[in-house]
């Protein structure tokens, strides 16, 4: 039985609120951004980067760091804002360089310009194979780092994921943790209306993964799940871990929640103010 560190939960909730607000301001500053997906995966990503991952923001190329592969590359803006908060670049740089000819920040991350990304991604269905390759390399080196990979649920429509799912299970990659941001909406529609994915838990279980299912917008559950992960041991052969992170797209902003149209959108000053105040209200409700 794991005792939940309530102080840690509060600290991470506070950080998640701050990052959600940064995302809203960012969207206003650059004019138009993916928002629904970044907002659904904010909590788990904040928990990873600010606490659970072996990571040093002052040395992002630290060889012993845990790796993070963003399968859903269109949510790069979440990491841009986290990295900005960590001091890797300024807000002026982020807003000023977004989608500019000589800028570093695009809709999707490019490690050529932003080496703190462990892979350039954007085309869906690539992340898990890359993460599997990373994990195999880690095992070859007997390195003690872990590979985290976040994919969208709609992204799982891409067949290549299932090739990688089988490989990771076959090779028993105990140093690989897949997080599925199960916000139940893909680019345009609810997943169960386009290509039904339920039950992801049963699917991964059938593929010989260790399945953990949580409310991915509940920090206490995230902390509990990530705290319960066994120590990283790349050599030990055990089931890879999947965290089915059940989330709400656009989480924290009422008019965006569970709305497919907020996959991507713009916020003028008025809408930004409304979104910020809704986030405060969401936080006061207890971020549940």
């Amino acid at each position, binding site marked *: 039985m794991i005792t939940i560190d309530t102080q840690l939960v509060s600290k991470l909730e506070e950080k998640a609120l701050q990052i959600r607000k940064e995302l809203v301001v960012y969207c206003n500053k650059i004019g138009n951004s993916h928002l629904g997906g970044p907002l659904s995966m904010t909590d788990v990503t904040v928990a990873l980067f600010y606490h659970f991952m072996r990571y040093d923001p002052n040395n992002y190329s630290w060889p012993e760091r845990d790796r993070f592969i963003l399968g859903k590359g269109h949510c790069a803006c979440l990491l841009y804002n986290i990295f900005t908060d960590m001091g890797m670049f300024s807000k002026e740089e982020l807003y000023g360089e977004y989608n500019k000819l000589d800028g570093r920040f695009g809709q999707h991350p490019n490690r050529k310009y932003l080496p703190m990304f462990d892979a350039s991604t954007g085309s869906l*269905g690539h992340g898990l194979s890359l993460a599997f*390759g990373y994990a195999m390399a880690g095992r*070859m080196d007997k390195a003690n780092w872990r590979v985290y990979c976040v994919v969208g649920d709609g992204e799982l429509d891409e067949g290549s994921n299932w090739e990688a799912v089988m490989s990771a299970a076959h090779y028993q990659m105990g140093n690989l943790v897949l997080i599925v941001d199960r916000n139940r909406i893909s680019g345009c529609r609810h997943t169960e209306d386009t290509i039904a994915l339920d039950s992801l838990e049963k699917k991964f279980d059938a593929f010989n993964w260790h399945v953990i299912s949580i409310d991915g917008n509940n920090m206490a559950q995230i902390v509990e799940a990530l705290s319960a992960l066994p120590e990283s041991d790349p050599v030990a052969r055990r089931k890879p871990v999947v965290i089915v992170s059940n989330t709400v797209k656009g989480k924290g902003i009422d008019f965006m929640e569970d709305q497919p149209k907020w996959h991507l959108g713009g916020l003028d000053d008025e809408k930004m103010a409304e979104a910020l105040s809704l986030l405060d209200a969401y936080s006061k409700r207890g971020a549940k």
Partner: protein
Amino acid sequence: MAGFTFNVEEMTVMGNARELVPKKIFELMKQDKDIVYVLSDSAVTGSIPWKILQAYPDRTIDVGIAESNLVGTAAGAALAGKKAFATAFGPFLSIRATDQICLDVAYNDVAVCVIGTHGGLTSGGGPTHYTIMDYAVMRAIPNMTMISPSDANQGARIVDEFVKNPRPMYLRLARGEEPLVYADQDYPFQIGKAVVTREGRDATVIGTGIGVYNALKAAQELEREGVSIRVLDMHTIKPLDGEAVLKAVKETGIIITVEDHNIIGGLGSAVAELLAETNMSCKFKRLGVPDVFAKLGYPDTLYPYYGYDEVGIAKQIKAFL
């Protein structure tokens, strides 16, 4: 799977790229612990890939019949600092995994040598198993080096070059036993530089892959009739050795390209683009698969049928002279 052999009277020393290339990888894996071998259900018991799998189970990853994952896995390992070879059947690898080759390998700019076997019409498996688009696809991918060795030993040299200077690369191999163009390895070889395998005055045939052998055979025939043919081994399709092409245009005035590939998008197209943009005027013809899903058979019937065996090449040269 028995290797297919050509019906030739001379230059009949054969080499199997699908053996010699993995053999070279095996040899290098002994010296370099950072080399990773990723394969797609291609370790037949007793074969070299199988031996690699036995010797280095930790550095050999068999992903099964899954080309997209094959390439993504290799790229992931390369992102983590490894030098990866990713090998599979060319017909599937070159088009099914194009997305991964383009983005995971070339865009991420990592040390992956993608090896597509059964190049051109060599498989004998019919249109589903012919590889006639790989040059075109790989040429259009930024950062990518596209290489089609003219014989198995040259394929092994490319493996060496890749390990010395790893970069996103596609290496196209033929199916099995093919003639060795070079009697020994004592010739200058550099990626991106054509080999002048034969000097000549009257016309130039630029070949790549098996096209070089066919061109040399045609040149031998024509020599008996007093015609002097230059033959370039354009093993690197991208970056193209434009200098060698332009020199050949100036000095011989006739250019014929020969490739076991669709005539659209491959070597012939690359040469044509160069000629057009440099305003070089010459008699020019692309020989290869004439933009069709090719008929059934093996190269000994297919190359003559489509006119890029030595007879077809010689015929085209004569038409120009």
